[in-house]
């Protein structure tokens, strides 16, 4: 026996031992044993300590379908992130220009577009603006002189008829295309956004004929700026990346073992949480967007006297809109949007409705919502937040906030400008949390969110959740669930049991058949097959690849293919023996003749494995992984190890006949 022979056998034995080593923790249930000990504070026994020191601690990584858990696919509303950012840019530029003592500047975002509109009094202002933009946003924001809108001034001066005018303008001009009619609060100036340049004349004529008291106004200092494509792209990518990071932070806090959070395509995030016992809570923590905004309450006769909530007239309008437009009950983002859409022209164009929700503390369900009329533009946003803590005051627990330098400055200016004049609404995820009266300027950037009604403990829990969400970073945009799979843990156990039983019986049938048909050679094939399965499982454990239910099917399939390799070889050997060759030559010829067919068949399978892995998700990937690992181990075992056994057999016994 040559030394290369011995080396080959050692190599095979080493591979088998390595697989066994990798699988030991799973066989002994080591990981769960250690975790349990840690959870109960139990002192480890000596053998447990020794094993934990010798063996790897990772058990086989079971897929969600086998151990239960949650799979979520979330879509990040990148558009929302972009418009939040643009709002912010608009208010920052506005603040800059007023700090430069330039009067009569209006900067706002054109609704539903990426454009920001600036109305400037003179050329100096324009120069300042473009300087500011190029300094702070280098080339990310593009200035445009042309504009696709018309400006009119009304002769009417009183608020009610001006508002009525917006309504009738909307009505008359809507048939001419998708238009926006805008009016800043208290102003007698209207802007009509054109659907396209071709409609300009047509719309001009319509207004001239139907609205005699409107005069066209030329605004020389009107510019529009919008983000460049590259900047938009960066904003998109950043918002998804930030969402992934935020979710990861939250889940780490929640404490799920081995969560998987990854980006999927351009704006999707896949979240896998194995073994979660309370799916509803986990999902709500992942999804809670924690978008914090501070908006001024619109006080132009729309609020009740002495209170920031919307007055009766507007409440009636909302109630009417719900009935007329068949807006569903409740206060979801969607229905609030519909309400705002329906009230267009009835409240001033830079305002919007938002609700403060009342929750029934026992049923934990929203029972009512108090409407507020707010300025649409957020003055301070959550991304300027530095920290959030729970504090307890005389009136119960509250969340205290502190802002970063920019946020603190903005907050200070905002409160100084509105002290003793107005209410500031604190909005979380689109809902008004509270709307306190601004008593004095708050220069140091500290604010508080008080919580709704409820007993002390609920309030404390709520405050803790809220501060967690705020502290872990607000999401730049809200998330929409597009796919959700929850598998209860017991179902996982059933599945694993069932899959294993089916695979085992299939294996038994095949093993028996092989021995019956190929006798001793069949037995060799069966033993090698066992080694093959061991190696597959070992590789899965070593690389922490995931074993899923289709993965078990993949292993069953690999077994069939491994046998095919042996069958091809055995049939070849039979042929060679039939043609009268001596055993040793027949065996060698059989192996070498079969090689091309075995390799070709396995490589094609490997190719489909690669494609499956590329395109598949979750369980399908599990199938692809076992298939690909199986192809490699099958070539190794079914071809190479079988060959080794035959050579050994012939060398040792030098048989006259072969049991095949």
């Amino acid at each position: 026996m040559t030394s290369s022979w011995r080396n080959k056998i050692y190599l095979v034995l080493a591979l088998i031992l390595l697989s066994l080593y990798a699988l030991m923790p799973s066989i002994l249930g080591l990981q769960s044993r250690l975790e349990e000990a840690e959870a109960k504070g139990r002192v480890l026994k000596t053998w447990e300590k020794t094993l934990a020191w010798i063996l790897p601690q990772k058990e086989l990584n079971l897929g969600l379908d086998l151990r239960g858990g949650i799979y979520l696919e979330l879509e990040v509303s990148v558009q929302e992130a972009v418009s939040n950012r643009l709002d912010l840019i608009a208010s920052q530029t506005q603040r800059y220009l007023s700090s430069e003592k330039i009067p009569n500047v209006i900067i706002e975002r054109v609704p539903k577009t990426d454009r920001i509109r600036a109305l400037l009094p003179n050329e100096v202002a324009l120069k300042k603006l473009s300087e500011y933009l190029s300094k702070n946003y280098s080339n990310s924001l593009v200035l445009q002189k042309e504009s696709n809108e018309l400006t009119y001034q009304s002769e009417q001066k009183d608020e009610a008829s001006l508002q009525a005018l917006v309504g009738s303008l909307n009505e008359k001009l809507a048939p001419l295309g998708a238009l926006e009619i805008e009016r800043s609060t208290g102003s007698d100036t209207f802007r009509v956004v054109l659907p396209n340049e071709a409609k300009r004349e047509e719309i001009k004529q319509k207004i001239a004929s139907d609205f005699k008291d409107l005069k066209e106004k030329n605004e020389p200092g009107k510019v529009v700026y919008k983000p460049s494509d590259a900047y938009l792209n960066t904003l998109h990518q950043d918002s998804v990346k930030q969402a992934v990071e935020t979710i990861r932070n939250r889940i780490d806090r929640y404490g799920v073992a081995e969560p998987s959070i990854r980006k999927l395509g351009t704006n999707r995030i896949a979240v896998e949480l194995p073994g979660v016992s309370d799916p509803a809570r986990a999902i709500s923590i992942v999804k809670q967007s924690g978008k914090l905004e501070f908006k001024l309450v619109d006080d132009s006769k729309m609020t009740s006297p002495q209170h920031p909530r919307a007055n009766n007239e507007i409440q009636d309008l909302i109630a009417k809109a719900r009935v007329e437009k068949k807006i569903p009950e409740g206060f979801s983002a969607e229905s609030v949007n519909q309400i705002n859409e329906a009230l267009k022209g009835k409240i001033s164009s830079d305002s919007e409705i938002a609700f403060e929700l009342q929750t029934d503390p026992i049923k934990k369900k929203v029972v009512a919502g108090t409407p507020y009329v707010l300025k649409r533009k957020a003055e301070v946003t959550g991304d300027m937040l530095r920290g959030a803590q729970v504090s307890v005051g005389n009136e119960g627990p509250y969340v205290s906030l502190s802002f970063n330098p920019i946020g603190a400055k903005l907050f200070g200016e905002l409160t100084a400008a509105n002290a003793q004049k107005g209410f500031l609404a604190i909005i979380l995820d689109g809902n008004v949390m509270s709307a306190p009266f601004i008593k004095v300027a708050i220069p140091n950037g500290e604010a508080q969110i008080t919580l709704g009604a409820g007993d002390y403990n609920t309030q404390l829990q709520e405050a803790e959740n809220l501060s967690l969400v705020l502290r872990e970073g607000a999401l730049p945009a809200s998330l929409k669930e597009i796919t959700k799979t929850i598998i209860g843990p017991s179902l996982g156990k059933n599945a694993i049991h069932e899959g294993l039983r089916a695979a085992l019986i299939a294996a038994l049938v095949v093993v028996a058949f092989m021995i019956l048909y190929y006798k001793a050679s069949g037995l060799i094939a069966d033993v090698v097959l066992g080694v093959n399965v061991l190696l597959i499982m070992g590789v899965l454990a070593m690389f922490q690849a995931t074993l899923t239910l289709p993965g078990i099917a993949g292993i069953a399939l690999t077994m069939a293919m491994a046998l095919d390799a042996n069958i091809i070889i055995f049939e070849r050997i039979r042929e060679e023996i039939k043609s009268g060759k001596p055993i040793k030559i027949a065996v060698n010829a059989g192996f070498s003749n079969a090689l091309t067919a075995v390799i070709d068949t396995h490589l094609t399978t490997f190719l489909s494995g690669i494609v499956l892995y590329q395109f598949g998700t979750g369980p399908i990937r599990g199938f692809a992984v076992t298939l690909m690992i199986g192809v490699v181990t099958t070539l190794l075992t079914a071809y190479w190890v079988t060959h080794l056994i035959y050579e050994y057999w012939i060398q040792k016994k030098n048989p006259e006949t072969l049991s095949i």
Partner: protein
Amino acid sequence: MKIVEKEIPFIQNQSFLLILSLILTMGSLLLMVYHGFNLGIDFKGGIKLQYKLSQSIESGKIQEALTKGTGEKILVQQVGQPSENLYAFELQTPKENIDTFSTKVTEVLKKEFQLETVTLIKEEAVGAKAGSEIFKKGQVSVIVAWILILIYIGFRFDFYFSPGAIVALLHDLLIVLGGFAITGREINLTVLAAFLTILGYSVNDTIIVYDRVRENAKKFKSLPIEDLVNQSINETLSRTIVTSLTMFFVVLVLFIMGSGDIKDFAFAMIIGVVTGTYSSIFIASPIYIFLKKHGHRFGMSA
């Protein structure tokens, strides 16, 4: 123990099999067009819930209550052993958010039937958009796998072999799809994996025959092409039968013992194993012969 000894004239007696194949594939195509598939929620979007209830309730009654309580058309089915009180609900994408739908169902079940415990043990929800994207991806993956395999054969063998393998593949896939159309079995992600496995298996089988043809062509240069192919098929026949049978056993056991996705997977594989074996002998090989004989007319040269 021997399965075959005699030379069987496969190539000479096959015109009626060609007609059979034609009928089967055309039939499958017609079925696919007129009958359509039962696409699972993986592809068309929708919600699948599985509940364990504390007592047994007739599924018709549950269906009635849920339809009234939620305003959606929900399919209710009892699954598992009758004593387990397991129920599966399925519906296409509802008008409301998919995230909150199961809460509503749980509420209705509790209220309507005064049950002690209502446990949601499995929930799968796929948005309509996500579903159609997955479907597209699935189709793409089948085509990509197919092309990769063809390129591989083209290089490993030569281009007289490739077309036969292409047609054999299409033939197998069509018949399997026909099987799904006629039984109304659900096509989901796992079944898609089965389709890809069938592609792989069908090519495996064809490659074994081709490999032998290539080998014999070098050995017996003067043999007429029909005899050469026929001999090759006969020589590989024992392997074909033994392998197909073992494969068949495996998937049959999976089909009988498995449930849910595994059962669907095995169903596809059962049809796939049979047609895959058949097509390498009766589809791929004759096409190879035809091209060898008449290929020069289409500009093919060896």
